């Protein structure tokens, strides 16, 4: 069966940079635009890399900043200074 790791966040100013960064680092990810929110999902694993987001956003960016705009997540979370990973392990 399909095991989708996903993240949903608010569709605001920060969103476009997140979408660009995530789709670059996760080429098989699918992006869905819903009213006022964006859902990105991929089979089993999704990774958000600080470096890539910083590239897109043009300034220093803390992985924890994402907390303000996140609406929902699916998958086990591994978070450190440089990345935020969602994945199903089984």
């Amino acid at each position, binding site marked *: *069966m*399909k*095991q*989708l790791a996903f993240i949903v966040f*608010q569709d605001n100013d920060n969103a476009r940079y997140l979408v660009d960064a995530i789709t670059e680092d996760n080429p098989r990810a699918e992006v869905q635009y819903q*009213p*006022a*929110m964006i859902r990105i999902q991929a089979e089993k694993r999704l990774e958000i890399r600080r470096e890539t987001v910083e590239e897109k956003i043009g300034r220093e960016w803390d992985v*924890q*900043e994402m*907390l*303000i*705009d*996140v*609406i*929902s*997540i*699916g998958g*086990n*979370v591994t*978070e*450190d*200074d440089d990345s935020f990973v969602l994945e*199903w*392990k*089984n």
Partner: protein
Amino acid sequence: MTMQKKKLGLKDKYRYLTRDMAWEPTYQKKADIFPHEDFEGIKITDWDKWEDPFRLTMDAYWKYQAEKEKKLYAIFDAFAQNNGHQNISDARYVNALKLFLTGVSPLEYGAFQGFSRAGRQFSGAGARVACQMQAIDELRHVQTQIHAMSHYNKHFNGLHDFSHMHDRVWFLSVPKSFFDDARSAGPFEFLTAISFSFEYVLTNLLFVPFMSGAAYNGDMATVTFGFSAQSDEARHMTLGLEVIKFMLEQHEDNVPIIQRWIDKWFWRGYRLLSLVGMMMDYMLPNKVMSWAEAWEVYYEQNGGALFKDLERYGIRPPKYQEQANIGKQHITHQIWATFYQYSHATNFHTWIPSEDEQQWLAEKYPDTFDKYYRPRFDHWQEQHANGQRFYNSILPQLCQVCQVPALFTEPDDPTQLSHRQIVHEGERYHFCSDGCCDIFQNEPEKYIQAWLPVHQIYQGNCGGGDVQTVVEKYYHLKNGQDNLEYVGSPEYLRWLAWKKLATPQAPAGTGDRRDAA
């Protein structure tokens, strides 16, 4: 001059800033400082294995949360200033808010209390800190909800005494008993029930209906609250997933205990959410999606992935999930039908859905709506048109566990009420399902304590000997204002006046309003 050479990584730094502040006591016994950790039978061999979910220090917490609050309250102010309540799709929508404020908001306060307590009961400091942060988040939620609804309370009825009603009104014992059950449990069950089952597995089935419902129906205040709260929910979700994995990994003896809790709380959560499903399908003038669709995406798909992941610990999906999957085609219609006829005792209005709405329901429920449920609405519509809008004067039999009226049907036969009975120590108890029976049989001494509203009314403990007195004196509902049929209600008339509508955008049903017997 000493140069600082060593820098700690995020994970280690966070440990120093949280759990490292704890210590092994020597002047008092650890068992006396943490007296509630063992009685549930959960075995923790090494709290050091606890992985902190979000690593948020207090300074970062204050900073990010303050940013969110500033934005949120600016919206609340703008909403009030611009009479935003007049921009909603239709006044019927506000009945969803009445259900929310009386049914859900007090649970947020209960969560604040439960997590404050759990934030003290665990000997693992990492778990304590995570629980405390959730506690204060939940306080945030109840307070921002009260503030969001404050403006609605000034212009609509039924919102005015939410806390008082939560403790007393018959159908509100469904959410109240749910949370009392969780809070009265030990800390590990509390976290399994709320952090895992509710805040992780089932959370979307509460939030998407209400918050998307708000978005689709022009309720800026609530949708803004919803988005603002969801970022807290992401943290809560990771706590839920972490706590379940932690318990399962600590000791194999924990597995059967946790399985039983997963089964119990899935079923209690499913029954609680039937109220939300009803709201989605029947109370929103602009529909988001059907309950069946929401269940399919947010439980069957998402939950499927989750339980596949947990297989490696020896956990299987919740017992009776198949019944819930079958039930998604039926429960909302059954619940609305019940509230329709008991609307003399609710703080919100009910109505017959319009022809367009019934068409939508028929499309979303092709196998069940036209066959089993439309005929009821046709019948009641006819009665209403004849000036005899139906109110049921006999109070319903409630399920001893979930406290929903025993209105559900057998999974394999929607024409047969699903009713079970158990005799326990000479007393007969009634249930809506096998799921609730199982819960009772695992802890009968707990569930026999329940304050069943209908029993209490009949015993004379609710302020009076007739329903109208109960409704007015005990529930604080103003008869003819807060309750009864929507069409012709003061709220309906006021909406028409605001919108300067000659013809009502009203649901089916005309004729006089009749007070209930």
